[in-house]
């Protein structure tokens, strides 16, 4: 299940553009993510963050340039193998409404033909990892709170132990308290697991809390790509604008 190990970056965007109907959603993106690093893609809606994310697990293919995962272009990867080695978390979980919590979490192990007992054990392990009671296994997503659904979404993405995680505004739909809780837990989880992660958000506070590096995007372009410690001190006007909006935010 683990993707072939390599010493280079886990994910590389090599001058990637993505156009649809002549409109460029991503322009000449050049960026790499090292093994075990959390990169936050920051930007407002329509800046190309989500599109960039989907170029990694081949939900989209670049119009020009290439995206390499473990050194291999996504066009050369078998899409099914590639996706099963990448966990994907989206807003509100994207859970299967007709599957129980257990089946949602155990789906990738199931289609990878793990033995039944191993899947069951893994589901319980994952529930514990994201702080959910094992009593929830037989519930359906609609019977859960937003925060619980999001935790199940994270558990599902981690179930087959993929080396890479893609997260698309995973905590965007949660109330502020639950969101803060989930952010803290995710940070703790990442410190232990050290997955290679790309985390998409429009929330600077979230970016500064979770990132090893922050890449700021605007209008399909990468504006800056800095370690999280250096980001707040950048003189780039757009970064200044973000920092200003952040510091005047009512507490």
């Amino acid at each position, binding site marked *: 299940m683990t993707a072939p190990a390599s010493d280079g970056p886990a994910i590389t965007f090599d001058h990637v553009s993505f156009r649809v109907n002549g409109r460029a959603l991503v322009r000449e993106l050049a960026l790499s993510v090292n093994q075990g690093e959390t990169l936050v893609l920051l930007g407002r809606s329509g800046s190309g963050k989500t599109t960039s994310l989907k170029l990694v*697990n081949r939900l989209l293919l670049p119009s020009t340039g290439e995206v390499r995962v473990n050194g291999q272009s996504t066009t050369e990867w078998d899409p099914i193998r590639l996706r099963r080695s990448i966990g994907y978390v*989206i807003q509100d979980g*994207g859970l299967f409404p007709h599957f129980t919590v257990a089946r949602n979490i155990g789906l990738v192990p199931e289609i990878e033909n793990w033995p039944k007992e191993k899947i069951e054990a893994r589901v319980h392990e994952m529930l514990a990892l994201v702080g959910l009671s094992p009593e929830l296994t037989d519930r359906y997503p609609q019977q859960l709170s937003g925060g619980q659904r999001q935790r199940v979404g994270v558990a599902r993405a981690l179930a087959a132990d993929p080396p890479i995680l893609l997260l698309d505004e995973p905590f965007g739909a949660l109330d502020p308290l639950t969101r803060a809780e989930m952010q803290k837990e995710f940070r703790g989880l990442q410190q232990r697991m050290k997955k290679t992660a790309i985390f998409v958000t429009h929330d600077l506070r979230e970016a500064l809390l979770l990132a090893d590096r922050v890449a700021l995007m605007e209008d399909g372009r990468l504006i800056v790509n800095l370690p999280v410690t250096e980001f707040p001190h950048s003189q780039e006007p757009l970064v200044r604008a973000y920092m200003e909006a952040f510091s005047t935010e009512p507490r």
Partner: protein
Amino acid sequence: MNFWHFMVTNRQQVLDLTLEHITLVGLSIIFAVLIGIPLGILITRVPQLSKAVIGGANVIQTIPSLALFGFLLPAPWIGERGGRLAVLALTLYALLPLIRNTYAGIRSVDPAVVEAGRAMGLTDRQLLFQVELPLASGVIVAGVRIATVLSVGVATIAAAIGAGGLGEFIFRGIGMVDNQVILAGAVPAALLALSADVGLGALERRLGTLRLRS
């Protein structure tokens, strides 16, 4: 002659014609499901075909049923027996609700859920059988229900080409200008339609709750 009296004295024939009617409708619904659901799935995969397929099924539906039976009469093998011909015509009629509901049902599945499945590495096949079809099943069964109720009615006309079924009583009653005989065909047919509606409706609601969970 009183309606009940007619039913009781002719109970064997009522039963036979009812069973014949159920066979005609049952067989054609089975064929329509076997053809219509795959066609409905196909046009979600090849959307360029959707206009032609749904349009074609629509055109068939607009042909008056008696005329459709007539058109099919010269067909080889099929035209030799009224029963075969009736099953073919009824199958053609039942296609539209099945194709349309399968298509609409799959299209109505939350795109975020489908994309999540794709992103998790489900193959097209797994996505179809584990995600799309289960979530569309309520709408698809609604199509089966509509097609069945429709077929029970249209099948009464099959008697005109000698296919049997409850239409026998209706046509005979018209010929005899005897309402009791017409009712002997019409009442059981109405009951069949009603029970198909209720039974499949219950199944549909059961499957529909799956969708409500999203």
